């Protein structure tokens, strides 16, 4: 059963964010950390936490690029009202570099995720699957060969036989 087209009831109702009191959510409050220095120093203790580092290394080893991980970290802190999105964005390169340091120190292959990939050509198997999904009716193409039969009537056009 294909679940991709089934409606999800876990999603918030449109306009739900406007039903609460203004300022009741942490991200609606003024951020706790306002400068980039403060934001960076907020993230550095994370890298001293053994549990966090182990989990981070597992993610990197699984092939997850660093930038999406940093993205999640920043968004989570914004949601908590720690800092603004802009300050998080400015601190992102420093967090990326710290993660690279950890990966290299542990001897783990990592992917930053900053390289834009070119156009990926679909494989032949993917094309054949896509064509199967289309279920196009096979058109029977009949090649009709029209052969002119020589007319035998009296009013028939004179042809090459007559030498005209």
């Amino acid at each position, binding site marked *: 059963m294909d679940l991709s087209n089934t409606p999800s009831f876990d999603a918030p109702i449109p306009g739900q964010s406007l039903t609460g009191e203004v300022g009741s959510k942490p991200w609606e409050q003024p951020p706790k950390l306002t400068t*980039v*220095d403060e934001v*960076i120093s907020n993230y550095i203790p994370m890298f001293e936490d053994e549990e966090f580092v182990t989990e981070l290394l597992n993610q990197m080893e699984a092939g997850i690029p660093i*930038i*999406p991980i*940093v*993205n999640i970290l*920043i*968004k989570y802190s914004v949601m908590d009202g720690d800092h603004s*999105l802009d300050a998080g*964005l*400015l*601190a*992102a*390169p*420093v967090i*990326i*570099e*710290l993660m*690279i*340091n950890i990966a*290299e*120190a542990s001897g783990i292959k990592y992917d*930053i*995720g*900053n390289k*834009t990939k070119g156009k990926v050509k679909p494989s032949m198997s993917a094309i054949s699957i896509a064509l199967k999904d289309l279920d196009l009716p096979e058109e029977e193409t009949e090649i009709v060969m029209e052969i002119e039969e020589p007319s035998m009537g009296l009013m028939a056009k004179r042809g090459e036989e007559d030498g005209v």
Partner: protein
Amino acid sequence: MSKHIVKMYNRLDAQINKSPSTNSTKSTGLIPQRKEPEEESDIIHYVKQIRKMRENNNGLK
């Protein structure tokens, strides 16, 4: 947001990798012209420091 982070990181990386201009500017007049030292932003400074630290660690291995 990831797109913005990628853009920011690539721009910063390019700025760091750019060869620093060590040549002094030629003075054309009697008074030599002095170029003001370019002030690095905090983030570039941090990134440079972290990279230097990494190079040192890799050198020790």
